[in-house]
């Protein structure tokens, strides 16, 4: 039992340990203690700093866009599906399907859909006279497409959690408000939405923590290229990247990667705690 706990917690603490060393991906090379120099390099040294700062900003943009859009879209879909309707379960299945398919299938499917030489997205854009290189275009544009695919792929979870929350709201409450003359929007705004606070908080927490650490779709759809990376992706690239092209390479800088992981962890911690604080405050105000 204790072993089990150690296995799951130990590595997190060990990340901090490795971040002070020059550990590599090779057995037999001695690991030296470096103190804070990995952090100095990551945060304060020359060319890296500008790149790393951009990566940090992009990580935050990714987190913000995914959290806001995924949560709103999930709420919209859940509310629409929470009424008597013939094809309810069919819609639910369709919206949840990508969650099950995983990053490889989702990434490749969208790469095909965004195929620039007359693919479906190009045809649709052509209807309004537009043209785009999509994933092959300017980095920021490609980044936005991957962000959208991330939302597309995970909205199903948000929807299911909201649907679970909606089921706990007694329908008499809504009906009573309608009899009192409230419009659909009013009863949503003043009854459903406040009562959904627990589900909303769960969804926001999951989306914030999840999106700060998400990078797998970026890897599938864009690989390790400049201009579209987020923090999680460069950690992977620093610590393991060389193995992809050259399995025998010694350049896997695991210690430096660990330092970047600690930076990411602190980012998740700080943003997570601010979000928790704001959500608790709102919950007290709304639910009393």
């Amino acid at each position, binding site marked *: 039992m204790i072993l089990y706990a150690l296995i*799951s917690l130990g590595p997190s603490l060990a990340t901090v340990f490795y971040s002070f060393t020059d550990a590599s991906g090779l*057995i037999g090379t001695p690991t030296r203690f470096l103190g804070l120099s990995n952090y100095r390099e990551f945060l304060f040294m020359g060319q890296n700093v500008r790149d790393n700062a951009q990566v940090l900003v992009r990580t935050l943009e990714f987190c913000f866009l995914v959290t806001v859009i995924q949560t709103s879209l999930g709420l919209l879909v859940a509310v629409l599906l929470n009424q008597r309707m013939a094809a309810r379960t069919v819609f639910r299945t369709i919206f949840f399907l990508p969650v099950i398919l995983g990053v490889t299938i989702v990434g490749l499917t969208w790469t095909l859909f965004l195929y620039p030489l007359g693919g479906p997205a190009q045809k649709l854009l052509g209807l309004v006279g537009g043209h785009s290189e999509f994933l092959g275009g300017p980095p920021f544009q490609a980044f936005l497409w991957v962000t959208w695919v991330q939302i597309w792929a995970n909205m199903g979870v948000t929807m299911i959690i909201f649907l679970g929350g909606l089921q706990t709201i007694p329908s008499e409450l809504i009906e009573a408000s309608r009899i009192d003359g409230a419009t659909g929007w009013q009863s949503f705004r003043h009854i459903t939405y406040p009562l959904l606070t627990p589900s909303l908080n769960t969804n926001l927490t999951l989306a914030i923590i999840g999106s700060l650490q998400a990078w797998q779709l970026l*890897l599938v759809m864009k690989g390790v290229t400049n201009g579209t990376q987020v923090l999680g992706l460069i950690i992977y690239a620093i610590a393991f990247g060389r193995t992809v092209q050259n399995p025998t390479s010694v350049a896997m800088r695991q210690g430096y990667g660990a330092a970047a992981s600690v930076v990411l962890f602190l980012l998740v911690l700080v943003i997570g705690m601010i979000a928790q604080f704001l959500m608790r405050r709102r919950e007290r105000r709304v639910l009393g």
Partner: protein
Amino acid sequence: MSSPSGRPRMSPTRLVMILVLLVLAAVYLGPLLTVVNVSLQTRQQFNLNPTAIARQPQLANFVTAWNKANFPLYLRNSFLYTVIATGLYVVTAVFVAFPIARRYVRASGFLFSLFVVALFLPYALIPQFQLMLHLRLYNTAVGYVLLFLVDPIGVVILVNYVRSIPRELDEAAAMDGSGYVRFVLRVLFPLIKPALASVIVLHSIGIWNEYVTPLIYLPKKSLMPITRGLMVFYGQYGNDWTTLAAAILMLTLPIAALFLALQRWIYAGVLQGSVRG
């Protein structure tokens, strides 16, 4: 919104709502249907017009993909990893969760909170890699399976579920002289079936879909699971979209079928997993 007879009337609001749903459903199905369509096209058709409906659907792409992409080997690997790792994981997770839920071990409250905390901790990629490397388990199937035996979410779901089962049962079993292991396997397992089902389904889908873990841990081609194999194939034949679409589809169909059959447990698992301690 319902008329006196009780049947929903087609009010304008309702019409708009249904339209919104239909548009969204199109956004969700469009990319998937594109894959289906392209997988049935010939290469010439695709190069001429990727969105043309495949008039004479042909299955040649599937045969090509099956052979060229090394499908049988990769599929076998994925299948073995998923089944073995999920099986071992579920059994160990139950034996961990049960005593914690019943407080049969010291500091079980503390242990449980460790698992809940672990849910939020970032995945410790680098130390785990160093550990595997020095245990000489890097690039081995055994090592790869081991990676999936420590996932806190299943333990958390199981602990919460076991707590809802009356404790009297344990005592009755103990009076009957039933041993601990026997009790867990024969009495507890059937009782916690719903939670087990969710954990099994979520865990196995997670392993099946895993892409980065094999990328890091299994560079040897003969050990790769299908997700990784598909990306290798994509790297080699990146422009051969008709074959690629067939390969994607062959990977999608089994998961989609499983999903349709087990939807209920999946949704339940997502909800149980989101109610975190």
